[in-house]
């Protein structure tokens, strides 16, 4: 708690400096400043608060079955949280589906706790049911911090999901002809001053995939990967992706497999 408030104070100080610097100097200086405040924040990422409340949600009995999520199988066996996020998405035999973290959490909430996933799927990202999902995602992702991303599609359904994700990544549509590739398909480009990771490459995929869920300083919100994707689809002028739908899981599989071998830096902190 204390570390976090120190971190926030440090951030405020540095970001004020960044704001003045941006006026006085060129964009490169502003970029460096942003890097600096990200570093300053490493010890006190406000995402820690979400990890804590996520851990509590994980351990507290809830739902019609009055059970906790502690026996949830995230791919490494019931109850194993450590390192699980770095190996998602993956194929799960019990659902016969490839699942990302958030869809897997819904499965566990349904089977272990007897909760209906529907309100969780349909709620807006700022409504309480999604706040639960995001806190849980923050907690689980934190238990893979600094682990190597290990996602190597082997099961035929994992390979199929990767190919569908790649196709989705390049799929143009809508009034602006945008695809993910329009904004994330070239090295070293940006929109305004926001750097765009090159997602077909390992480094760029890791920069994107390996740092979400993340606390977004500009909005003061904790975002899960599902929320990140939702907002990119909005900018793409596409219709809204259904929460934990296959298109979002396929894209996640594409990003995670491309990033495999790099390091998980979750939960992250963003501009």
């Amino acid at each position: 708690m204390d570390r976090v408030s120190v971190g926030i104070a440090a951030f405020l100080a540095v970001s004020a400096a960044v704001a003045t610097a941006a006026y006085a100097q060129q964009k490169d200086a502003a970029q460096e400043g942003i890097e600096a405040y990200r570093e300053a924040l490493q010890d006190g990422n406000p995402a820690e608060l979400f990890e804590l409340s996520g851990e509590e949600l994980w351990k507290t009995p809830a739902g019609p079955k009055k059970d906790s999520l502690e026996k949830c199988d995230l791919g490494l066996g019931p109850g194993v949280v450590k390192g699980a996020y770095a190996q998602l998405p993956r194929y799960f035999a019990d659902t016969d589906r490839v699942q990302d973290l958030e869809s897997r959490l819904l499965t566990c909430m349904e089977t272990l706790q007897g909760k209906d996933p529907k309100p969780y799927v349909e709620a807006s990202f700022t409504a309480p049911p999604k706040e639960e999902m995001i806190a849980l995602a923050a907690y689980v992702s934190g238990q893979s911090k600094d682990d190597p991303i290990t996602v190597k599609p082997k099961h035929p359904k994992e390979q199929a999901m990767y190919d569908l994700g790649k196709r989705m990544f390049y799929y143009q549509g809508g009034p602006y002809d945008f695809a993910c590739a329009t904004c994330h398909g070239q090295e070293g480009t940006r929109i305004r001053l926001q750097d765009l990771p090159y997602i077909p490459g390992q480094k760029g995929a890791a920069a994107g995939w390996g740092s979400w869920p993340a606390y977004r300083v500009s909005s003061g919100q904790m975002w899960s990967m599902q929320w990140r994707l939702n907002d990119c689809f909005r900018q793409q002028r596409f219709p809204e992706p259904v929460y934990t739908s296959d298109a979002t899981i396929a894209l996640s599989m594409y990003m995670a497999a491309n990033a495999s071998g790099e390091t998980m830096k979750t939960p992250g902190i963003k501009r």
Partner: protein
Amino acid sequence: MKHAMKHAAFLAALLLAGPALSETKVAPSWGPGADDAAFTRMLAASFKDKGIAKIDRLTQDETQAFCSDPEAAASPAAAEKRLRIEAANLATVKWPSDGKWLGDWKEGEKIAQSGRGNTWTDKPGEPNGGNCYNCHQISPTEISYGTIGPSLLQYGALRGRDEETMKAAWAKIYNAKSANACSNMPRAGHMGILGETQIKHLMALLFDPNSPVNAQSNSAKSGPAQ
């Protein structure tokens, strides 16, 4: 009859295999042609209408479908199709109705700055922005610009203002695919994002000698440093 069928089957196999018969894969592993049914099912199940962004936006026109496999679209084998797609897009361009190319560069700057429009959080009825600064450097005073497109700094000063140059810029803004089949730039006029008057203002931003885009840089104005 039997022979003819065998022949047809052989032809089909040839077509699928393409020129590189030595390659092991017959169908592509991903993209158009690879399990289209699964992809279509995924699209149908994964999106829903929200606000003005309806699921019919997922239905591609020929240009979008062609450009959704960038490697194939850029390959020598696709050269003819690229030309055909550019011609079809060029045919959509509506030229200025009164023959005048340029509007007011100050209005153009506002349109270039604005990125609003066409998302599910936008309301219908309000004018759209051009999104230009998201991808281009334009006026030297705006340092927050993107780099997906080339810098347009000094555009009119460098390119000149002859009819042909104006025409090319108008066509690029109206329908960017008219000269580059898989340009990453939206087709602002063709897709109804911007109207004729707005495009004229943007043209003025690029070409008007008084537009900051064409302002002489300090070093050029004051000569060598003292």
